């Protein structure tokens, strides 16, 4: 039996994402992750109860906090799943408006401030004025890029978010100092449920980059991932104006 690898072809980083596999629906592939999460939540509730019965209120409180985080996460995953399926079936609903860049940048990172991750993010805004974008979609895009960054950076590591306007485009970069991704795997990571081989147990549901790219494309733009010199990954979204 021959076992030579197929000839290497440099894939086009902006080439279409093969989606035929997912026409039938994303739900079956997400079932395991969602089920796992729900089981975790029911165990956490049981753990909180046993700790209370053992008169250990501080431990019980710890499990209640785990429950809240887990439920928040499940909400997010469910919403991602629905949005991703919509993107595959009919495309994302795109309603651009003129928004101040600073406003847009601040709105987009609001959720992470609420999740007390704000101090791990360095925000940089170059240029000002107004940009034409769909604020909800950009918030979805930037949210997933930051989420990936925070997940793969060292626990205390920062994630840098740079906003820049040029006459032609709005460019948003999210850079982390995480473990990086083997360069050969970068283009494939935009496919649903694809994880980098070194993601280990930091991997999430696996729809974040797919959604982020769908948002960039709804704006007529691109999203690319590149290795960051010195370690880590840079995600660069370019939304033409």
């Amino acid at each position, binding site marked *: *039996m021959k*076992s*030579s*690898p*197929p*000839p*290497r*072809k*440099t*894939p086009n980083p902006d080439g279409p994402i*093969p989606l*035929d*596999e997912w026409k039938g629906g994303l739900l079956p592939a997400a*079932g*395991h992750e969602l*089920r*796992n*999460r729900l*089981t*975790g*939540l*029911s*165990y*956490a509730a*049981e*753990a909180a109860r*046993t*700790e209370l*019965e*053992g008169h250990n209120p501080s*431990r019980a409180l710890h*499990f209640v906090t*785990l429950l809240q*985080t*887990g439920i928040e996460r499940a909400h997010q995953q469910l919403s991602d799943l629905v949005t991703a399926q919509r993107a595959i079936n009919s495309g994302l609903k795109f309603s651009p408006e003129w928004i101040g860049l600073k406003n847009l940048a601040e709105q987009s990172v609001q959720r992470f401030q609420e999740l007390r991750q704000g101090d791990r993010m360095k925000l940089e805004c170059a240029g000002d004025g107004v940009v034409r974008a769909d604020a909800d979609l950009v918030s979805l895009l930037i949210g997933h890029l930051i989420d990936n960054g925070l997940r793969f950076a060292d626990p205390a590591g920062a994630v840098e978010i740079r906003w820049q306007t040029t006459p032609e485009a709005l460019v948003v970069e999210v850079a982390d100092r995480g473990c990086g991704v083997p360069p*050969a*795997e970068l*283009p*494939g990571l935009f496919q649903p449920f694809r*994880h980098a*081989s070194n*993601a*280990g*147990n930091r*991997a999430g549901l696996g729809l974040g980059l797919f959604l982020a790219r769908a948002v960039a494309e709804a704006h007529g733009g691109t999203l690319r991932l590149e290795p960051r010199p010195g370690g880590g990954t840079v995600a660069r979204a370019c939304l033409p104006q």
Partner: protein
Amino acid sequence: MTLLPTSPPAPPISVGLLEDDPILRESLGSILQNTPGFLPPRLFPDVQQALREVLRDPPRVMVVDVKLPGDSGLRFIRMVRSRLPHLRLVVLTAADHEDYLFAALEAGADGYLMKGANLLEILEKIRQAAAGEPVFSGPVLRKVLAEYRQRVGDGQQEVRLTQKEDRLLQLTDAGWNCQAIARDLGLSVHTVYALNKALYPKLRVNSRAAAAAVWRRLRRPAAGLETGPAPRPSPPPP
């Protein structure tokens, strides 16, 4: 009046838990810790740490989430089984179909429990596993029985694979995606999808991962206690 002699109480059970989800790991850990008859469990977030510590100082029962990144839960079972024949290895999984059931049994698991089952039932099964019994969640046992009946019904018919199918499964097992496999076989990616679909009923699976697991089983029929990985083709291309 004297008390009737009773059998001494069973010693508390030491449990190791290999689970990558932090909420599941911590919660199940706390529940075991607060359940009479169990020692405070040892919690392992990843295979490396579990291997290191379990080989040095094995617990009585090791509970393993089989669907860890890169199928490493199965590898863990295979490696530990060959070195610690007396350790009780129990799979705890959230897989909604029993994809990993036969692969786990082949790797040397002593039981297969579904996470969705009632917690009391899971604790009881862990106790039974500590006592040396094989343990299965109800639906799993039905699946084993159904598979057995089907094999008997089939007259133990072997699954025959064409050369193309064999190569396709080998590459799937090595982690290649459909595009790369299509290039390797000189087929369109749609033909590869179609080949995959046609293979599912033949192998009685419903995912590429499961098909690869069955292929591995077919290639190594006596692989019960083997430790080495199957011969692998080159790593996946970009």
